[in-house]
């Protein structure tokens, strides 16, 4: 990355760009994943620098004074917020957390790139040693990343509530586990639903992977949170595919050593899906 671009990224993170420069830079971020990743990294460095200042607790009465200023009732901005795309997404997220215990297993980048409208969603049935893939065209050609995300999230919620609606058919019961992944290749975000999965053995944890069958590239989508219950619906996102010509995608879950520091590639046993998909 050239120094000038790095400089712009640094000045952006430090809030040192003019409004016009800032708007232009944000437009670039939407289409430049490496630049967006650099900005996220620089932001985390900046945050670390701030958090490592000598720390002082805010005075106890400060919260009361702030609350007195913001008033007891919701402010007028609330009405507008209800219409904001992010607020809609967040409300869905909050509702889903309550309804089906959605968790987030990994987020590479909250800046959702613009998604090509023509790319269909993928739904993959996951069973031991087997995957079943189907494509789901977006309905109504949603414009923009937010609209696609809302549709993706709504489908995830719908299939969680009514698994009989799933376009991929799976064995009705399996003691070894089963689930499905719903993925938007345009935004590299998805949901994985686990219906049955044995509790990971001591020293192991379950990792979700995305395989590009054309290039062999494997991207890690994160660690599925350990839970006593063998079911859950989890949000994930993966780094953008760097290959120019990507092929069909496969998903699989492995049991990896929890002590392993590097998880750049799967090393453990595949427990759901098929690595040779």
């Amino acid at each position, binding site marked *: 990355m050239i120094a000038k671009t790095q400089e712009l990224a640094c000045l952006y993170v*430090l809030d040192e760009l003019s409004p016009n420069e800032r708007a232009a830079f944000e437009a670039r971020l939407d289409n430049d994943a490496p630049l967006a990743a650099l900005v996220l990294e620089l*932001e985390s460095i900046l945050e670390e620098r701030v958090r490592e200042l*000598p720390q002082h607790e805010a005075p106890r009465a400060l919260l009361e*004074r702030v609350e007195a200023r913001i008033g007891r009732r919701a402010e007028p901005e609330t009405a507008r917020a209800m219409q904001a795309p992010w607020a809609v997404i967040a409300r869905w997220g909050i509702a889903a957390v309550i309804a089906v215990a959605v968790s987030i297993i990994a987020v590479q980048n909250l800046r959702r790139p613009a998604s090509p409208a023509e790319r269909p969603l993928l739904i993959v049935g996951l069973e031991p040693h087997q995957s079943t893939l189907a494509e789901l065209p977006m309905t109504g050609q949603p414009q923009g990343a937010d609209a696609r995300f809302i549709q993706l999230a709504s489908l995830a919620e719908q299939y969680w509530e009514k698994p009989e609606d799933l376009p991929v058919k799976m064995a009705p019961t399996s003691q070894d586990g089963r689930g499905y992944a719903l993925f938007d290749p345009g935004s590299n975000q998805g949901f994985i639903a686990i219906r049955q999965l044995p509790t990971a053995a001591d020293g192991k944890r379950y990792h979700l992977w995305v395989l590009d069958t054309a290039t062999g590239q494997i991207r890690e989508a994160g660690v599925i949170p350990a839970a006593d219950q063998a079911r859950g619906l989890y949000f994930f996102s993966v780094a953008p595919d760097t290959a120019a010509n990507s092929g069909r995608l496969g998903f699989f879950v492995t049991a990896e050593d929890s002590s392993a520091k590097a998880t750049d590639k799967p090393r453990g046993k595949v427990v759901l899906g098929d690595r040779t998909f």
Partner: protein
Amino acid sequence: MPSVSNSETVVEEACLIARMGVGDRDAFRELYGRYSSPLFSLAVRMVGDFGQAEELVQDTFVKIWRNASAFDPRKSRPFTWAVTIARRTCIDHLRKRRHQPVTTPFVAEEAVTHGLATGENVRSSAEGREDVERLRGALAEVPSNPRRALELVLFTELTQSEIAERLQQPEGTVKSWIRRGLIDLRKAITEGAP
């Protein structure tokens, strides 16, 4: 490997801000609990006075509440967004009281800690001290001019042209130093990570 815990924190905090955007006071209290100490510490660092810092952090949280519905997680991490609001609030205040001398980074940091702290320093755990030492170690690896330029832009109200004047360098050089300061800090932290 994706940083799961960090990512979870980011998403949790983004959700708190979104809830605040629709008037959720419990979410505000939760976010206040997470951010009040670091933002207060930042304000103390920038203005060098506990009383003024308290007023500025109060203003900061009112702005956070009022602007929560405008927060866009695609443009900024939640804590970075809050830090930006806090810094802007402090910078506005500092520019109004121009007669005050600008604090000098690093030296002043110690002075603020020892001169003004009232036993409320919450960074007392061994782990916390390790973090501080690790970051200070990384900072020490950043060449002095880029480090100074970065600290001036981060913790003072000076504009880039004023920093250039203070450091007696062209503005382009200062921008380059700021870039080097942040990029080198990132490199030092990454290479020093266990």
